[in-house]
């Protein structure tokens, strides 16, 4: 089956995210409830979730969420994985009957560890690099197979349908995570392909996004410069890769990475003090191709927490709230109030200013600067 038309995906969407900064795991019910409130923002053509802290028993293994819609695909994937990886555990992803969900693909997950001698490994490559290569290879070259997610102790659940139905289908009320992301999709090109739903994941990055990246063409070519191949033609995909490039590969602090994606205007830079100006200027000059232009609100999940970012002119809605140890971020206030009726603080995200929900354990030093 053709995965997508060979054209860029454009969609309006609902997004929601909840993180316990204390690292306390909670069931998927809350996120399902939150995203369901924004039913009108989806069209039933895609919904999905990401959870972090799902698999404590396999916390050190890469958890691959895979889908297959070709009978021959699983075998090919298995053969490819065998080149570099030891499969520690493999199982179907449990599902349940859900209204409006039909013809799901084959859904499996496997937990893998790198082989001591990985055949495709280059001298400087890390395990993560190889996992990226693996996931991208499967997505690009193995027909009928698609990697939903490839991080550790996390997973992405998504498919064609309204997000609340997808949640039921994947029995998310039975999982616990300290960070949940959800996405309801309103695509303007209609394809009923489960791989095309969101979140999009790579390693432990999971991205949900509402918007239209008008700079997509150059963002994509910019990433190609660094070896990323964008097979899905989605904004979410480039956002994910950009986070991976900037933070994981180039070791930019989160704050600086957000400055790259949604930089201040030159007129603002001109009014900064010398040190800040030099920083902002350098980032803009070097990372022009990474600037995300056009309307967007994105939520990016990672092992360390969640970051929300609006485009620099704030052309898409995004609301945040805090209560107890939790940070809630959603496209609409109602989606927060549905699960947190009485937040301590509630505010609208500012254009270009990231909001960070940092999970205390194992926090990156970088995140400390943005609070």
């Amino acid at each position, binding site marked *: 089956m053709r995965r997508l038309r060979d054209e860029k995906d454009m969609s309006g969407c609902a997004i929601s995210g909840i993180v316990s900064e204390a690292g306390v795991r909670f069931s998927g019910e809350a996120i399902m409830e939150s995203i369901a409130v924004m039913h009108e923002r989806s069209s039933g053509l895609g919904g999905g979730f990401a959870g972090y802290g799902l698999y404590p028993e396999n916390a050190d293994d890469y958890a691959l969420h895979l889908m297959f819609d070709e009978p021959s695909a699983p075998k090919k994937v298995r053969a490819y994985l065998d080149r570099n990886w030891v499969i520690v555990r493999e199982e179907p992803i449990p599902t349940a009957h859900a209204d409006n969900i039909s013809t799901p693909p084959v859904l499996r997950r496997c937990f893998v560890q790198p082989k001591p001698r990985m055949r495709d490994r280059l001298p400087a490559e890390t395990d993560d690099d190889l996992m990226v290569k693996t996931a991208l290879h499967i997505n690009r070259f193995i027909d009928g197979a698609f990697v939903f997610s490839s991080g550790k102790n996390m997973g992405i659940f998504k498919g064609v349908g309204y997000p609340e139905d997808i949640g039921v289908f994947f029995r998310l009320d039975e999982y616990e995570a300290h960070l949940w992301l959800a996405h309801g999709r309103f695509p303007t090109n209609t394809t009923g392909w489960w791989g095309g739903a969101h979140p999009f994941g790579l390693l432990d990055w999971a991205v949900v996004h509402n918007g239209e990246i008008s*700079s997509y063409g150059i963002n994509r070519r910019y990433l190609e*410069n660094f070896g990323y191949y964008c097979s899905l033609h989605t904004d979410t995909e480039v956002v994910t890769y950009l986070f991976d490039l900037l933070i994981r590969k*180039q070791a930019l602090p989160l*704050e600086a990475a957000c400055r790259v994606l949604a930089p201040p205007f030159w007129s603002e830079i001109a009014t900064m003090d010398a040190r800040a100006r030099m*920083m902002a200027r350098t980032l803009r000059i*070097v990372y*022009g191709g990474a600037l995300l232009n056009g309307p967007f609100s994105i939520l990016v999940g990672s092992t360390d927490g969640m970051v929300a970012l609006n485009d*620099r002119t704030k052309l898409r809605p995004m609301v945040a709230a805090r209560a107890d140890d939790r940070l809630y971020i959603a496209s609409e206030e109602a989606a927060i109030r549905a699960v947190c009726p009485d937040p301590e603080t509630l505010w609208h995200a500012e254009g270009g200013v990231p909001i960070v929900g940092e999970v205390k354990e194992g926090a990156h030093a970088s995140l400390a600067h943005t609070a």
Partner: protein
Amino acid sequence: MRPWLIQPEFEIERDLDRCIRCQVCVRQCANDAHEYDSEDDVVSAHSIRCVGCHRCATLCPTDAIRIKQAELDFRSHACWTPSVIRNIYKQAESGGILLSGMGNDRPYRNYWDRMVLNAAQVTNPSIDPLREPMELTTFLGRKPDKVEVAPTRGGLALKTVLAPQLELALPIMFSAMSYGSISLNASLALARAAYEEGTFANSGEGGLHKSIYPYADAMIVQVASGRFGVNVDYLNRSAAVEIKIGQGAKPGIGGHLPGEKVDAAVSETRMIPENSDALSPAPHHDIYSIEDLKQLIYAIKEAIRYAKPVCVKIAAVHNVAAIASGCVRAGADIVAIDGFRGGTGAAPTMIRDNVGIPIELALAAVDERLREEGIRNRASIVVAGGMRCSADVVKAIALGADAVYIGSAALIAMGCHMCQKCYTGKCNWGIATQDPYLTKRLNPEVAERRLRNLLRSWGLEIKEMLGGMGVNAIESLRGNREHLRGVGLSDSELRALGIKQAGVGA
């Protein structure tokens, strides 16, 4: 002896009912195409001398003059066209090389006109540049792969030191036009306009006249094969240095400024004897290979203490992508590519019209190649050669250019009428001449204002187009070929340009 086979190319039509015999035309034509007979009180014309520059028609206070293309006076023939026949007559008469000024005038396919731009509808909002910020600021120079930032207790600390950059208020610069090939007034106007509008002008291989020193911060100084006017002060009195390897109008050909144009001021500026011909060799005689180029680049970088970017300008030829890649690897911070429509003060017509490739294709190839090689950020790409309007600029940027050079458009803004007779030194518009009687026709204040207006109006249009596409920074357009579609192009052309067919979605 009168060249009797040569017929007028233009007809000067004078409406005698409107002619007031004021003789403005007589006084303004450097080619003596108009003549006043005081006995009969009548102005008459010598059409054979007319070059079609429209000076007379423009200045005629009663609009009594019309310059028309001479009627087709040969039996029509698809192969033996009038221009072909005329050229043969001229050569049979002169025994010399046919010369032309300005750029290739043959009707090759213009790919700018086969590419259309995108605009935002519904799924993303277009942006109104009159209400919202719209950023055209462009930096030319070498960029690192990444920026190193270290978190410290006082915040983030920048560890990366950027290579020198040229900061442009908009991605348009004035291309190389030497003092000598154009008048000092024209050079001054270009320098001042660039300076005032936050962009750059290029000295060409003419040295830097003293009166341009105040605008040196807006000057890219050129080092070409003749090395005219080059010394360490010249290199340092600049914003950047450009090594000129080739020129789009005449790839593989050197330059020749006739001695008549080398007056005292030109002589001083070029550092050559007065009245001597200024001959720029075809190649640099110290660059016979890419390693030699690298040596020169680094020799210059040493001379300017690595404080300014070094640009290498090449003509768009068949393997331009590989050559550009070589230039980047040899240390060029900026690669300027000049397409075959690029202008010139003088070039053999056959070369001008038949050598080199269109800049659109060259640009597409170079940008793609540098990206494939992962070295695109190591150098900026500047393209030149037939950039006619802001849409051409936007398309060039979308194809992958960082900025463009405009030459002919700038000259036209100053009054050039594209008569293509620059090489005669008799430019009636005071641009491509050193004759004091003609140079004063170009008031640099007026020319500067017109150039600034041109830059501003193109800037405004670029902002409108950017806003229409839903982006508010030029870097989001740069190399963003998703915003381009081809119309009426073959598959191979689309492939060469790296763009999709119009009608094909994102």
